[in-house]
């Protein structure tokens, strides 16, 4: 079926079967490989993207459900050539090990800060519990989110890419 999506601010027209998961459309039709396949059933969070501002598991979201919507992927998180404050925190904190889950982790954290710029520890843990990390980077993830949460960067994070 023919459908269109706005992906990272750009309108894209596609001709794909409507039941194709958004994940494979992003990766294979649009070449956005930063979003990862982990489980195919929404249990691990590696495929997390934002659809109309909400975090969704793209592996189990048929593209027809997303049709006409606005999708943001890890590639679209930076703005005006500036990395998102969370991406900078991830680098500064040295969060990734194998790194495979981290796009999904960052997208979940970005949604949290967009809706709750100064989350408490419990809010962060709750928001990040749907994202599995086999390497066990969980404590660095908390440290990275907390380094941004509550700071002016968190407010920037909800609207722009952050300053430093």
């Amino acid at each position, binding site marked *: 079926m023919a459908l269109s999506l706005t992906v990272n601010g750009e309108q894209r027209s596609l001709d794909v079967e409507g039941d194709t998961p958004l994940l494979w459309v992003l990766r294979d039709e649009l070449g956005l490989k930063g979003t*990862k396949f982990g489980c195919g059933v929404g249990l691990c969070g590696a495929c997390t993207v934002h659809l109309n501002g909400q975090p969704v598991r793209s592996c189990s979201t048929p593209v027809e459900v997303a049709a006409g919507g606005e999708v943001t992927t890890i*590639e679209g998180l930076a703005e005006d050539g500036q*990395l998102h404050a969370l991406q900078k925190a991830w680098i500064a904190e*040295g969060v990734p090990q194998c*790194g495979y889950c981290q796009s999904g982790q960052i997208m979940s954290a970005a949604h949290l800060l967009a809706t709750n710029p100064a989350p408490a520890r419990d809010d962060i843990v709750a928001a990040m519990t749907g994202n599995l990390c*086999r390497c*066990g*980077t969980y404590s660095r993830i908390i440290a990275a989110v907390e380094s941004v949460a509550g700071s002016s960067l968190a407010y920037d994070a909800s609207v722009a890419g952050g300053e430093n």
Partner: protein
Amino acid sequence: MPTGYKEETGEWKPDAWLEITTSDEIHFTLARVEMGQGTYTGLTTLIAEELEVDPEAITPRFAPVAPEYRNPLYKLQLTGGSTSISTSWEPLRTAGASARQMLIMAAARVWNVDADKCTARQGRVFHPNGLDSVRYGQLVELASKEVIRGDVALKPASEWKYIGKQRGRLDARAKSTGTAVYGIDVELPGMVYTVVSRPSQHGGRVKAFNESEVRAMRGVLDVFEIERGVAIVADKYWRARKAQSALKVEWDNSDAFSLSTSEVFASYRKAADKDRGKSERSEGDYEGAVKKAGKVFEAEYSQPYLAHSTLEPMNATAWYKGDSIEVWAPTQAPDLGRIAAARVTDLSPSDVTIHTTFLGGGFGRRLTQDFIEEAAAVAYRVKKPVKLIWSREEDTQHDLYRPAMLHRMQASLEADQLTGWHHQIVGPQLLDWYVRNAAPAQYPWAPKFMYDTLGKVGLLAEGIATPKDMSAIEGAIEYPYNVENLDVRHTHTDPGVPVTFWRSVGYSHNGFAVETFMDELAHETGEDPYQFRRKLLKGQPRHLDVLDRAVRMAGWDTPVPEGRGRGIALFKSFGTFVAQVVEAGIENGTIKVYKVACAVDCGQVVNPRIVEDQIEGGIIFGLTAALYGEITFEGGQVQQSNFHDVQLMRQYERPEVTVDIVPSTESPTGVGEPGVPPVIPALGNALFALTGKRQRTLPLKADA
């Protein structure tokens, strides 16, 4: 690898690792793959330190297959066994120092000054006057003509700028922006996709399948049998998957594995009764100690099959071109990958090029090259670039597992003193499953018809042609406590379940058996588990040091909070000493791990943050096994499939982990695996302290 200066490109390759260009680009060929454990940063730091450049100024790239890049311990190009830093420590620093010395010698010749008076820093050589300097890039052509006579001096530790101090990760940016390329991300022109249906019982064979029905499905390009199952090739991944749901395969399971887990353990017990096993360590007279002892204490431990569950499922991309094949894959052993691709095509290993990518987790799973074998077999038929992706369910059910193991322990106690230790390990050895491609990879010139023979010879000549298989006994034979009479044995029995290396390998199960039994003996003799161990560690200063440190960190002598228990374990693996104290409880019917205090002695530290992260990651990996890890079989079929029944520890369950690294100038040892083994018994011991009930079977239960 050809070395020297190439005028056309302005590149100087002083050795197999470095390449410096006239425009000051520095490339480093990374021969140990990056799967999260930090080689990309750690090994680059070693070479940067001696080359006198910032590690950030170096661009690592993944090594092709070549003899220079073999791991000297295994004579294979393999990343595993927590050996990357220890085997690179001397060679990479020497490579960096040699290149630096040649650059200095070239500059000194230009300036007509004494080379010993020149210095190098930040990618430049400085004149003895301290003012004039010249960039490395300006010197590469001249440096390529210099010859170093004798040994090159390495920097003393006092002059290190990065070793022991470097904290960042060089791959953090790529992995935080979605730009790091994993195997699953490889994209080639005209690429098609394949999925493979495999027998649900290992060893099953294809009898028949509904080819025409599947072939008629949208996007399907081909459907055919390969050695490992039935492959569907389609223009898009999702179309291949949809076609697979219409595929009906009739399997011949007459020779397939058909046991259930309970039957596996029954077979282990039968084997253990019949054969007390091959002696692997014997000291004193254990039987005599038993006769003399007033008390013999016994326990049997059992541990399940475990899956690797790398978050990036198995995958590979292959392109067969008639006289060659290229493979892109997240592999821990590219030279074994070459053998795997040669096996299923009409090509020799020398016709196979393996491009290694970032790995989305390894943990030993990617030492076996079944995914390359499948992709190459499909590519051989379709003659186009083809990407194979396993589903999570396939990844879970067609893994090669950490073997289920049984341990029979006995101890003689004389007046509450431990006088004899007997450990009978029951289960398979991993090289039986691994030599198939490993043996030919050591002899890549051997003709293909010899591959299977080489595998068998490798097993027969164990200890001569191949290293002794330590996979079942490691961690048991290095029993560190001062006990006079020791008897460690292995009853070799293999029920036919595919098994392989799993983060910390044999230490993963021997750690649980040894350190739980030590705890039982402490209880039996009425001693504090820490003091009981401590008294038996005279002459073992590094064991004692980590044990004391962990105990101090955990406040072992302070009262345990209500509803919690503390457990301790000490285990050396891969040359690294680790002690852990776990504080755990039971909340709402589930086990809750509150704190893990961990002391680690891994010799000289290269990157303290990566050491902390590897140890903490190992602890979470071990806790995942202790709390949830279990692959079970019914009638030969794996019962688990995805993350609902292969649970991994999640963010909300994370304990507070503190890691204390012992300052040391000893040679560095590994850190990728040693965090795993002690945390499993330490948690079990904590639960015993809380409930008074001893659990001898994993995973641990809240209601045991």
